[in-house]
Every structure is written in structure tokens, then in C-alpha cells.
């Protein structure tokens, strides 16, 4: 049964890792900026929330509304936290990728790595 679970997609992994890196300060804008600064991926806020919602529905994330601030036009932040299930899914995906990379040699521009 466990074996039939799907692995996380690339963007899903990026989001979960960003949330883990940001700790208690993981909300839409900070996640977006971390992705842009770290991997140079400029995602729209819509794409970000679509995936966050999907992960939330799968139970891989928890969310709660935070405080409203003036620079946000008096609107509250929505904070995200990776659940134990989310951490387990990340570990599985990482392990699967590591296994797949074992004994793989890439030949680039005529040289072998």
C-alpha cells in the first residue's frame, strides 16, 4: 500500500523545503521570495497558493491565519507548517531520488562524470 503512494512533484518539494527553511515565518510572500532568491524561480502568487492548497488538502501542510499589518493593507498573513506526513513524504521522495541517482553516470560534452 505504502509503495503505491505517489512521490512529490518537484515544485511541491521546493515548497515544503522552503516552509521548513523559513520555520515560523513561512507565508505566501516569504516563500515566494525565498524561491526567487535561492533557486531563481519567480512564481506567481496564484501558482504558489494553488500548490499550497493542494498540499494542505493532502494533509502535508497545516495553515493558520496570523496578524494583520499596515503594510499588508490591514490583511492577515496565512502561515504554513509542514506536518509529520509532509516530512515523511519529503523523505520518501528524497530517498527515491537518491536511489535512482545511484550508479548513474552522465556524459556531458564528451566527458564522463
Amino acid at each position, binding site marked *: 500500500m505504502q509503495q503505491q503512494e505517489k512521490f512529490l512533484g518537484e515544485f511541491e518539494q521546493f515548497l515544503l523545503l522552503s516552509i521548513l527553511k523559513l520555520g515560523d515565518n513561512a*507565508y*505566501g*510572500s516569504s516563500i*515566494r*521570495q525565498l524561491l526567487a532568491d535561492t533557486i531563481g524561480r519567480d512564481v*506567481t*502568487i*496564484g*501558482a504558489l*497558493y*494553488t500548490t499550497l*492548497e493542494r498540499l494542505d488538502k493532502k494533509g502535508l501542510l497545516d495553515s493558520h*491565519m496570523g496578524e*494583520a*499589518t499596515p*503594510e*499588508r*493593507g490591514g*490583511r*492577515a*498573513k*496565512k502561515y504554513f507548517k509542514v506536518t509529520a506526513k509532509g516530512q515523511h513524504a519529503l523523505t520518501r521522495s528524497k530517498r527515491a531520488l537518491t536511489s535512482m541517482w545511484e550508479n548513474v553516470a552522465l556524459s556531458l560534452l564528451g566527458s564522463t562524470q
Partner: protein
Amino acid sequence: MKNASLTDNQPPTVASKLLSWALPQYLVEPVLGDLSEEYLQRAANNQLLKAKLWYWRQAVKSAMQFMLKTQGGFVMFIVSIILFLGLTYMAMDIAGGVSMYVDIPSVLLIFPPAIAFACAATSINQVKSALSVLMVADASKQPQVYRSCKRVFSVLGNAGILLGVLMTLIGWVAIGAMADDVSMIGPAFSVSILTLVYGLALKILCYVAEQKIQTLSENENY
């Protein structure tokens, strides 16, 4: 000066409204807040124009992302209306030109009275509410709101078609009265039929609107 700069530092209102309309209700606050926060950071770096462009890009792309999910019914409704109008235009054009289907007196005989009948049979507020329910496609209203909205479109459509029949018959009576002038019969008949065409077009649009509201009311508990 200070007031002007404060006003300038507000995110573009139209873009925000577009996004609020397209987003699910529970995401409006966090998403607009996030965008507003980042917009102010960008605007503070003396890059106001770039910040505005960035905000518009984010708002439009994000709205497109959610629009079909949250406002899919409304988008399909608009697409079907545009398709209907386009095909009608094409049919008129093929049949000999659009101008022969345009007759302002016939328009005035159908649309204003039909709208007046709809307001009289329901109320001006109910007519406004029906249009707003159709635009926002919100499936969370009370059942009686949907019923009154359906009634508005039902009265509007039926009044349109009945007025069309009545005006056409009035035209035929006039044609009959001047039957001795055969050359006048063709053009007069053509104009008299136009009111029926307008009434029928209004009925079709109202029928689709009525069914759209019916669907919304059935999705109420979804």
C-alpha cells in the same frame, strides 16, 4: 505632496478587484496581503512603475489561474453569449447585411417595456440582485434569493417574447390596412417581424440566465 505619494503607493485598485473576484473567498485576504506587502517593498525602491507592472502581472496571471475554478460558470456564460452574438451577426451578414436587422423603434418597443415589466413584476432591487448573482456566480445565497432571481429572468424573457408577438401582430394589422399598396408590404412585413426577432433573442438570453441560476441554486450545498 505626501498625500499624493501615499496614494501612489497603493497597489493598483482594478488589478486588486480583478484578483478578489477571481480568488476563492478564503484566499482573498492572504493573497492580496502578500501582494500588497511585496508591492510596497518594490515601490519603496523608487521603482513605482516597475512595481505597478509587477503587481498587474501577478494579479492577471493569478486571476487566470483561479478564474475557471471559482468563476467557471460565469466565464462559460459570457463565452456562450459572445458565441451566440457572433453567430447571430454572421447569420445576419450572410443573409444580406446587418443593417437590415437594425431598427431602433423596434428595439425601443421590446427592451425598455420588457425591463419595466420585470421591475414591476418583481422590484428594481431584485433585478439588480439577479444581475449581481449572475455576475458573481456565488453559490452561497439563500434559496429564496435564487427563486427571485429566476423570476426576474423569467418575466424579462417572457415579456420580451410576448411583446414581440404583440408588436408583430400590430404591424400585420397595419400591413393589412394598406394591402392595396403592394410595394409597401415587403418592407413593412420585414420591419414588423423584427420585434419578434428581438423578443426571441431576449428570451434566449434570459432562458440561459435562468438555467444558470438554477444550476447555482442546485450547487448551493456543494
